[in-house]
């Protein structure tokens, strides 16, 4: 229990570092120095100290968006086994809550975007909900496959592949799930090839354009929430991919964090090596992710 809490605190503090790793990887590939690896923390510190302006046309929903975008990934993290230790919050069917707590946050972020009445933000909200609706089945199919494999409806047991002998029994399915979830990770976290986190061009953005009107602490919440969400999805991948438990708390945590860093590097390499998709092609890639996860299920039920 104590280890689980320690792990949670470490991961909460680590999240902005992951963005730094991605940016450093991209800078390295491009032959630049890039921003400091702690830039995420500097940005948060700066934003939290700022004041902010709220448009008169907005309502309480406008501020609910940033709050929910931090709360949702924290709740999701409570349900995940971090560093090989059981989740703090675990019950039968928590995987459903895990998926839909993000949907709840998305609802509020999109509503907050439309609350401003800006044409850009409406466009961004439309894009975000369209694409996440397509990403959802991929995530759920993957969870379904793991449920079948582990015989459990709780994330702690589902993601612990040692108990079920997952890699021995169903390595093909797990590889498919990993591939599918990696695509979901990129889509849900507004990374290339779905979105360009660096662009300032309001007409092409998806996620960023929804939060154009948020400033100061509200935007800081959104940035931190985005870092947490990336960490949550990376946790899913790392927990599946490295089912090693040494029994030593510190070592397990180190392996886990090392895994997260690895995900950051891979995301950075993907962003360094390909262009963004044309917006009309995005659904095709998300459907591919769903099909991959679907095949994982099929392999397990045959």
């Amino acid at each position: 229990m104590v280890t689980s809490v320690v792990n949670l605190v470490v991961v909460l503090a680590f999240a902005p570092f992951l963005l730094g790793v991605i940016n450093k990887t991209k800078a390295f590939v491009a032959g630049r120095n890039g921003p400091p690896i702690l830039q995420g923390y500097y940005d948060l510190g700066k934003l939290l100290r700022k004041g902010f302006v709220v448009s008169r046309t907005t309502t309480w929903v406008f501020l609910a968006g940033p709050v929910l975008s931090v709360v949702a990934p924290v709740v999701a993290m409570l349900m995940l086994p971090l560093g090989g230790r059981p989740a703090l919050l675990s019950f039968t069917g928590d995987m459903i809550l895990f998926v839909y707590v993000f949907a709840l946050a998305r609802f509020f972020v999109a509503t907050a975007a439309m609350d401003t009445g800006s044409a850009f933000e409406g466009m961004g909200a439309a894009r975000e909900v369209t694409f996440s609706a397509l990403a959802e089945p991929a995530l759920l199919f993957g969870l379904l496959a793991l449920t079948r494999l582990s015989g459990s409806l709780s994330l702690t047991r589902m993601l612990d592949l040692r108990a079920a002998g997952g890699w021995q029994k169903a390595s093909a399915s797990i590889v498919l799930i990993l591939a599918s979830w990696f695509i979901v990770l990129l889509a849900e976290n507004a990374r290339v090839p779905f979105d360009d986190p660096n662009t300032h061009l309001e007409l092409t953005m998806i996620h960023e354009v929804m939060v154009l009107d948020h400033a100061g602490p509200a935007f800081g919440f959104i940035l931190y929430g985005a870092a947490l969400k990336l960490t949550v999805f990376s946790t899913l991948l790392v927990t599946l991919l490295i089912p090693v438990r040494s029994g030593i708390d510190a070592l397990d945590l180190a392996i886990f964090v090392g895994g997260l860093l690895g995900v950051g590097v891979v995301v950075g390499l993907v962003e360094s090596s390909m262009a963004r998709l044309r917006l009309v092609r995005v659904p095709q890639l998300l459907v591919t992710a769903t099909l991959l996860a679907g095949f994982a299920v099929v392999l397990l039920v045959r």
Partner: protein
Amino acid sequence: MTGTAGRTRNGRALALRDVPWLPPAAFREWIVRGVCDGGRRVAAYFGATREAAGDEAVEGVPLYAVLADDTNGRLFVARSTSDGATFESVVPEVAQAHLFEREIAEQYGIRFEGHPWLKPVRFHRSYRPGHDAWGRSWDAAIPPGVVDFFRVEGDEVHEVAVGPVHAGVIEPGHFRFQCHGEHVFHLEIALGYQHRGVERALMGGPTKRTMPYMETVAGDTTIGHALAYGHAVEALAGAPVSARAHAIRGIALELERLANHVGDLGALAGDVAYLPTASFCGRLRGDFLNMTAELCGSRFGRGLVRPGGVGFDLEPAHVERLESRLAVARTEVTEAVELLWDTPSVRERFERTGTISPDDAAAIGLVGPAARACGIPRDVRHDFPAGIYRFVHVPVMTAHAGDVNSRAYVRWLEIQQSIQFILKQLGGLPTKGRDATVGAMKPDALVVSLTEGWRGEICHVAMTDAAGRFSRYKITDPSFHNWLGLALALRSGQISDFPLCNKSFNLSYCGHDL
């Protein structure tokens, strides 16, 4: 109507009395027949004050048109007078004149009858107090961008307005999209926020300020505009320029093209989030700018071109340094740019995005790489050679698809040609000749000076009064022709592709707004 009267060449002075006066109907017919049947296009079309006509007896506002015949390298100038209030528009037949007529309407308060969309261009007061094409009172404020926009009505159709303040550090412009979801029906562009009054400031010149004005008409086209001005003054003053100065000017013009084309390819890669080319080209653009600094001490070429010659000579040590730097840059640019063509995800974004048909491109009179990307072999260096280009042939590079990929690829082809051109020039620079002294300019004369800047045809038309001072100086930046091309490229496209299309044209706001 297509006789030899008013026929001239690029950079050749013409006595004003040799520019034929045509009655309004014949003038209109001359433009329409010349463009529709004669294979000519409108290079410039502008008004002037009565004094500038060199003929006080003229009533109303004189109008001048310059038609270019690309195939034969000929320019045709004619003039007419409007009654000072209205004139018949040529736009129904000659679409490419649409912005010129709007400009004349705004500057001289002449209403063009039959113009389908006669709106102000730059939101300034008329040059003729008391005459306003839209009947606005003389002291009324003219807020920029406040005009009617084309609207599409219907359920679920919505309007997206972008600018004039943008998210990035770029020039101001206002873009109005009529959309259905992600689909764009129509884009209308309103500029004029950068209007500085350059053309008015040039009247009565040249003065000490004239050259700095020319170098900042469009800051990224310093050499292009300075060269067009230089050729115009040299033609009017009859000053022969040494072969060495011509060569150095050519090197500078191509370096400017290189820096901008390389920067554009990097920015195009950046817009599709393809980092390797974006990062490398960003640095390489700086390298080419630094080579221009090697020539004259300014990265943008300020102070290099002077009427009569160049402000700085090339020492042998400079030549060697330039040659070696260029050779290194050639290898690096090739590596960086070929990544674009070898990466499927980039090709997928570039191809079939922002397509303009060759017919549309010809009808709206596109110039520069945007026209050549539609398969139109239009290049001033080839069609109307002046300066060094009379002696050294630069092949015209074209592509055929008219999409973002073609515009990018034409840039890449031109980069290779420009490097080759510069290396050839550096290898055989003519010996230092005597700098021409620029004397007084011919009175009552007119000269059309064309230069192929990196964006396309730069057209300067200079007219002198009886004292040999500028009575009218008309500048047409390539952006003036091409902004409509961007609007057409977006038709039936995706709104999310706008930044990419915009970058593939990379037009100047201040060059348009003057």
